[in-house]
């Protein structure tokens, strides 16, 4: 079996899982206690008005019929009307998704840029003070509640030192850059608007660092463990015995393995990012999908709940498949292993 077929099979496993999840979340969101129509209209509304809205939303139909209607809508690019914005959820998500995507991507890049070198440092200096301090940092990083780190950053860096803006995506007096991708960093760069670029960069620093702290710690630990394992391998010993320069050894041979090790958990880390975004966007008033999601959860905006959960699940699945592809490209053993196992 070729690696490509293995990937296709993985994809085929993902689809039923996503369909299953859509049923699960649909059931959860629609059987919730409390009448969504009543919630939307408020206590002032008459019984007839509530009944009319229930009928309009199709809430009077049996649940499986509602699901079929909903899925039919999904394939036509409709996710149902949000009870609070009164727009189709897909319109809302299109508006809010880029902000979350931008935040998560910057946080991911940051995590790799910091976590991998720290892990290497820790491994090279095993059992010395550098190693011990990075270990303590790693354990603290995974143990700190994200909202707390975010609030502490706000207190120190924004309120007391005035270095960075407290909340938001861009200074309030600046117009948002013309929407091309919806990513402020990219759009302001494309427009050549460096004032906007600087403002959005300053705004993204604290949320991105807050979001990436725990993943940095996790990456560091994985890279450290993999490097230490590599150092004990025969090929390194041989190369070293033959007088290969230490730098070449580290940067050419061990680094590649370190990145492969990091890649194994990047899929999982994306889950952490997407989950963590809910808290981080709330703390920093970041106008993204996760903050929209929190509002949907609190106001029991059932179509928005389903929409947000499904978009996150699809994003998560796509990332994991991409990681699998990258993994196979980087590490022939994985590719050949998968082929041999299935043969």
């Amino acid at each position, binding site marked *: 079996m070729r690696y490509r077929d293995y990937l296709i099979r993985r994809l085929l496993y993902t689809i039923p899982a996503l369909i299953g999840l859509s049923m699960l979340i649909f059931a959860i969101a629609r059987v919730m206690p409390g009448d969504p129509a009543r919630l939307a209209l408020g206590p002032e509304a008459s019984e007839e008005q509530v009944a009319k809205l229930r009928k309009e939303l199709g809430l009077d139909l049996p649940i499986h019929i509602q699901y079929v209607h909903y899925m039919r809508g999904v394939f036509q690019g409709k996710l149902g009307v949000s009870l609070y914005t009164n727009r189709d959820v897909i319109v809302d998500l299109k508006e809010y998704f880029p902000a979350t995507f931008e935040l998560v991507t910057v946080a991911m890049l940051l995590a790799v840029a910091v976590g991998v070198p720290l892990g290497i440092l820790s491994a090279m200096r095993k059992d010395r003070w550098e190693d011990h301090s990075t270990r303590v940092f790693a354990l*603290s990083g995974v143990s700190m509640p994200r909202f707390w780190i975010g609030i502490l950053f706000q207190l120190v860096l924004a309120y007391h030192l005035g270095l960075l803006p407290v909340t938001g995506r861009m200074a309030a007096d600046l117009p948002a850059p013309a929407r091309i991708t919806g990513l402020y960093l990219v759009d302001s760069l494309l427009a050549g608007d460096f004032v906007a670029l600087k403002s959005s960069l300053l705004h993204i620093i604290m949320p991105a660092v807050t979001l990436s702290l725990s993943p940095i710690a996790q990456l560091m630990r994985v890279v450290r463990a993999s490097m230490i394992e590599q150092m004990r391998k025969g090929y390194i010993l041989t190369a070293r015995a033959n007088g290969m320069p230490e730098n070449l050894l580290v940067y050419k041979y061990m680094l590649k393995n370190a990145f492969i090790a990091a890649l194994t958990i990047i899929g999982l880390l994306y889950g952490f990012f997407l989950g963590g975004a809910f808290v981080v966007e709330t703390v920093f008033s970041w106008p993204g999908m996760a903050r929209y*999601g929190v509002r949907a959860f609190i106001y029991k905006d059932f179509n928005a709940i389903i929409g947000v959960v499904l978009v996150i699940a699809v994003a998560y699945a796509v990332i994991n498949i991409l990681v699998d592809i990258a993994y196979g490209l980087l590490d022939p053993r994985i590719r050949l292993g998968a082929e041999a196992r299935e043969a």
Partner: protein
Amino acid sequence: MSKYRTSDVKAPRLNPEAQAQAVALEEQRAARSYGARFEDLRRTLHRLRRSTLSLVGLAIVLGLIVLAIFAPQIAPYPEDIATVHFERTFQPPGRQYLFGTDEVGRDVLSRVIFGTRISLSIGVAVLAIALAIGVPLGLIAGYVGGPVNTIIMRLTDIFLAIPPVVLAMAVSAVLTPTLENSIFAIAFSWWPWYTRLIQGQVLSIKEETFVEASRSAGANPLYITFKEILPNVLTILIVKVTLDIGYAVLTGAVLGFLGLGVRPPTPEWGTMASKGRLHLPTRWWLTTFPGLAIFVTVLGFNLLGDGLRDAFDVELE
């Protein structure tokens, strides 16, 4: 399947002397294995004792348990869980109120101490439920295999298709915000990880010789699953549960912070931090101390779990 069954093989007749000898040998073997097990445990404890960080973790965890049990005796103002004191609102941290007081004059330290009860109950209850559902399903899937395995594992795939905290948020959003419902919501997203862990372990253990031996001697599958396989996954479970209690506490705090968890006036740390956020930046103590409590709790379980992992020498994932 072999065409011979074990029952077809006649046991050789032994003379009483030889039989007694065999029994004695068997007893000796059993005794040695208990001895060996004890020795293993002794070594594990020794390794744990040698690591300072693990001991710090253990001390934190034990300290938290003491705080939770004796909260009414330890907290300086235990009545502040329920009462308000408008005459002393927003007192900054000082000698009288170590962590300051909140918007209705309640002592933050006392509420943080009572909060250990809430957080530890979330941590322990979530893991108890996750284990009760996840472990048996994992054992069955791994041992029985075939279509049963397929059904169980595809089911867990559904739950694993989304980051657990998002599922927990969605579930708690539709339930009334109580402690029990928070626990349910988190456990609902937590068990599949255990099913997957155990299933993977069982798949590798069931090929081992001792399981093969047990099977060929005609032991029934239930016996093999619970008496032969389960003990071999215990160490990995202990390590993972210790680490996960911390993360469950963290998830509970996140739900509280977002307004999806336990409602005030219950002294839940995440909820306290969220309420305190409204009074930033001047009344910093309202968010800082509950957050610190969460951090120390999760760190304690992490240090202990990490130490146990090294001591038992198990690898997770």
